[in-house]
């Protein structure tokens, strides 16, 4: 086998050699991906070191622990990127090809909704945002200031956001199949956000805007991206680059509208 000198992010189209043992797969991580992960983490280390040394002029407490943590970040990131190529991308693509071959839009829509809903409802970042939103609502007098009222408000909000992400993936998948214009849909979404902002309670607006950013998790993004690109490449007349992306964009937009709607109704 030829020695592989390519960098991790540059070797996009390279197929994984098949048939290597699990040991080969593990050692492959360390040969190819650790250097890339070091490069990914280096800017954070430099920024922190600069501000500690030049601006704050304080020693860093617990250097040993930070070094151990940084090594863990590098190793974890390298494993994740390898797993991305081995599992998340191929699964997303194979599912897309499978649905295209089956030719059933209804099943594809059901799958898209299920994927968006389940990956969002258990998202830790969303759980945190929902709890904070409940505090804001209790403080503003929108709901009763009790543990039970806050918990039910937070759960309702999480379900709302999960439904909105499910619908977003459905719209995104239908757009790829039907060839709808992404410009029209996204700008239409912005107009929706604008109109909702005008009528929603002021306290919920900041939370709603942030909810758009936190809903798409690290495992969902590669799967959904591979699904979109896979669909666009298996449907005649669609281009994987111009049509395959955009699913994440919808998933960031709909929660903003749904959270503001929830703030008005709940």
């Amino acid at each position, binding site marked *: 086998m030829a020695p592989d000198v390519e960098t991790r992010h540059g070797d996009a189209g390279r197929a994984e050699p098949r048939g290597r043992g699990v040991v080969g797969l593990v050692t492959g991580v360390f040969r190819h991906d650790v250097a890339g992960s070091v490069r990914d983490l280096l800017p954070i280390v430099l920024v922190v070191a600069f501000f500690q040394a030049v601006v704050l002029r304080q020693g860093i407490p617990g250097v040993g622990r930070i070094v151990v943590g940084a090594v*863990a970040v590098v190793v*974890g990131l390298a494993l994740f990127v390898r797993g991305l190529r081995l*599992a998340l*991308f191929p699964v997303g693509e194979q599912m897309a090809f499978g649905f295209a071959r089956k030719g059933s839009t209804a099943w594809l829509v059901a799958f898209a909704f299920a994927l968006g809903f389940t990956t969002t409802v258990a998202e830790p970042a969303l759980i945190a945002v929902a709890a904070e939103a409940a505090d804001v609502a209790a403080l503003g007098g929108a709901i009763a200031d009790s543990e039970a009222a806050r918990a039910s408000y937070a759960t309702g909000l999480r379900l709302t956001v999960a439904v909105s992400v499910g619908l977003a993936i459905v719209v995104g998948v239908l757009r790829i199949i039907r060839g709808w214009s992404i410009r029209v849909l996204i700008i239409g979404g912005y107009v929706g956000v604008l109109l909702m902002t005008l009528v929603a309670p002021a306290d919920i607006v900041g939370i709603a*805007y942030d909810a758009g950013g936190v809903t*798409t998790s690290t495992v969902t993004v590669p799967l959904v991206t591979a699904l979109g690109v896979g669909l666009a490449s298996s449907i005649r007349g669609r281009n994987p680059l111009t049509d395959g992306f955009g699913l994440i*964009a919808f998933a960031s937009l709909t929660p903003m509208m749904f959270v503001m709607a929830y703030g008005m109704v709940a």
Partner: protein
Amino acid sequence: MSDELALVLESLRETALAVAPIAVILVVFQRFVLRRHLVDLRRIVVGFVFVVVGMAVFLTGLQEALFPLGRVMAEQLTSPELIGVDPALATWSDYWWVYVFGAAIGFATTLAEPALIAVAIKAAEVSAGTINAWGLRISVAIGVAIGIAVGCLRIVTGGPLPVYIISGYVVVALLSWKAPSPILALAFDTGGVTTSTVTVPLVAALGLGLATTIPDRSPLVDGFGLIAFASLFPMVTVLVHAHLATRRARHAHIPQEA
């Protein structure tokens, strides 16, 4: 060492729980709807183990080392002692180290964001190399840097969040209309993927620190909104980058034709 191990195991449990529903959906649809076997199942299973273990180790490292340090730095940078002026009398320009730190840490954390790495790899793959994965990530990181700096400025000056965000949308809408680009959908996607595992906790700490230090700001209301800025500006920088690249390519082409 056993403490660290316990933390990794706890993180492993949480990650596995978060990935489990996704795995169930995939298996159910693959098995009962598509009724086909996945190609090379063994590699896929190994890959899923890599994803779960990788995420757990990555998150433990962040929580143990980087997040506490980042939070302490955010508190120190926004403290009245470092600003050197009574917060009640300080103007927006007294907080300039905060904007610089916000931009620098936003840029750096974006480059380590696993979801963005995934999208960049995919974009490089489908564009057959015309999109450079590292270049795309740097454009996005510049967008996040600008976004966080502007977002901090908004918390300090106390301007209304919707006005800023809606103005940003108008700019994005105009850019997407005036400069149509094959990577429009990709640019819209970058808005959503920039802010996740690494960026959100550090940026939230910065927003909270600022809103606590500055008089008449509510941490609950004004602390929010930084993430929205960090999701908005990458769309602008990626579209501008693509527009400039197209123009440069066109200009480079004309003399050859003449």
